[in-house]
């Protein structure tokens, strides 16, 4: 009795496992053909932001344009959340087809993934309260309190280059903005377009301004798997978007009301040839 019950359970488990794998396999195959999975930030207003079931931001607009050029209409795009620490893994394991998530092109990242683009050149900048005119750039930071996100390139840049500055590190930029509003700190630092996106949200409108004195160059690229075949096509699409004026229109719409203009010397960029 005991033995037969156990074998029955084992048989059921095996059957269930078979059914599950069978189901999963066919689902994947159907999915790969007619949709494209794009990794974006879900929590970065102005760039990649999930608003209910809608996605908004500059990265999202570029992604939509590029996908359209590659033959995927808007309803064929599957948006995937791509937090900073997971981006390489998502691409390597083909969980996404491309990533547009404030993804700076760097040499250490090129070891694991490929990049198309750049589609935008950002630079590290400062966000201050609207009524604060004492901070005009990194050289005026002496004795000021600064906030950035723990472990970010921006935080490292400040602590390496401007050792006299007091730096608060927080888990996200929203926490930094909270501190900036209450006066605990004097400025928030990261890429200018991220700051502009934060300042342009409904809740923050009019409270903060971007200083507009960048001190780094961050080339935002489209992350791709190393074995991609789409890099050239993505570059063509980016060039087309810039030439058509769509690029500038989207940029303006997503940073409205913050007085922000991207570094005109470097923007719009020319995509680098694919390796």
């Amino acid at each position, binding site marked *: 009795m005991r033995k037969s019950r156990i074998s029955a359970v084992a048989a059921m488990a095996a059957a269930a496992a078979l059914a599950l794998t069978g189901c999963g396999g066919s689902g994947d195959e159907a999915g790969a053909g007619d949709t494209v999975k794009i990794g974006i930030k879900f929590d970065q207003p102005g760039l990649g932001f999930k608003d209910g079931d809608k996605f908004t931001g500059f990265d999202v607009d570029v992604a939509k344009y590029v996908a359209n050029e590659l033959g995927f209409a808007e309803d064929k795009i599957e948006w995937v959340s791509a937090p900073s620490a997971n981006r390489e893994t998502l691409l390597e394991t083909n969980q996404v087809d491309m990533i547009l998530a404030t993804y700076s092109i760097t040499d250490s990242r090129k070891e694991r993934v490929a990049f198309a683009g750049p589609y935008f050149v950002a630079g590290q900048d400062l966000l201050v309260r609207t009524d604060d005119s004492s901070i005009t750039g990194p050289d005026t930071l002496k004795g000021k309190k600064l906030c950035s996100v723990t*472990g970010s390139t921006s935080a490292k840049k400040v602590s390496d280059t401007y050792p006299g500055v007091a730096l*608060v590190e927080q888990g996200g930029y929203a926490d930094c903005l909270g*501190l900036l509003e209450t006066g605990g700190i004097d400025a928030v630092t990261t890429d200018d377009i991220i700051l502009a996106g934060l300042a342009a949200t409904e809740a923050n409108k009019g409270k903060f301004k971007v200083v507009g004195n960048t001190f780094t160059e961050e080339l935002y690229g489209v992350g791709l798997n190393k074995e991609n075949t789409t890099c050239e096509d993505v570059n063509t699409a980016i060039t087309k978007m810039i030439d058509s004026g769509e690029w500038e229109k989207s940029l303006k719409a997503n940073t409205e009301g913050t007085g922000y203009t991207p570094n005109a010397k470097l923007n719009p960029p020319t995509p680098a040839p694919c390796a």
Partner: protein
Amino acid sequence: MQGYLSLWDQYGEKMLSAFWGNLQLTFWAALASLVLGTILALMRISPVPSFRAFGTAYVNIFRNTPLTIIMAFGVLVLFGVFQVQFNSDFDLNFFQIAILGLSIYHAAFVCEAIRSGVNTVPLGQAEAARAIGLSFLPAAWLVILPQAFRGAIAPLGNVLIALIKNTTVAVAGSVTEISGVMKEMLEIRSDVGILIFFTIAVLFVIVVIPVGVLTTYLSKKLAVAR
């Protein structure tokens, strides 16, 4: 392998100094929470009802509040809104706020560990202490607590281990410690990816295992033979 070695070249010193920060947090928070936890345990076994109620309320509130929230409160409210300055040194101020947060949180667990130790002391001990004329505090200090601590070594060891690992939450409080460095390494050195996690995990294992072995040994060695 080459890439991993260059990670140590680039970040070795920073990792170790950050991990030293974790150990310092552990030391001060362990000390403070032991004191606070003992006082709370005394309150919970005291004959004064209002003390007992306060002890119970404290334990239930702080044991059930996520540590991250306590840490975020320290920075966003204590520092951000009320501009609390424990120290004129900007970074040290956050370090001390983090110790405060860790101590407040872990005191609740220390209190419960000691109370479980108190439960191992037979009622007759308390009655005998009263019979020779000791009032509550001397009876607790001279008779109950020394035996309770010896019975509570294992649970206190568990609290200490949890504390060591929980110091990583201080990253939410803007303290330079190992999980913040880990985030930075993942951002800058994404080429070595998963090895970064293993390295940090090994650092913690190296510290936590001896603590576990020591407390198990002590709890056997010092157990009150009854």
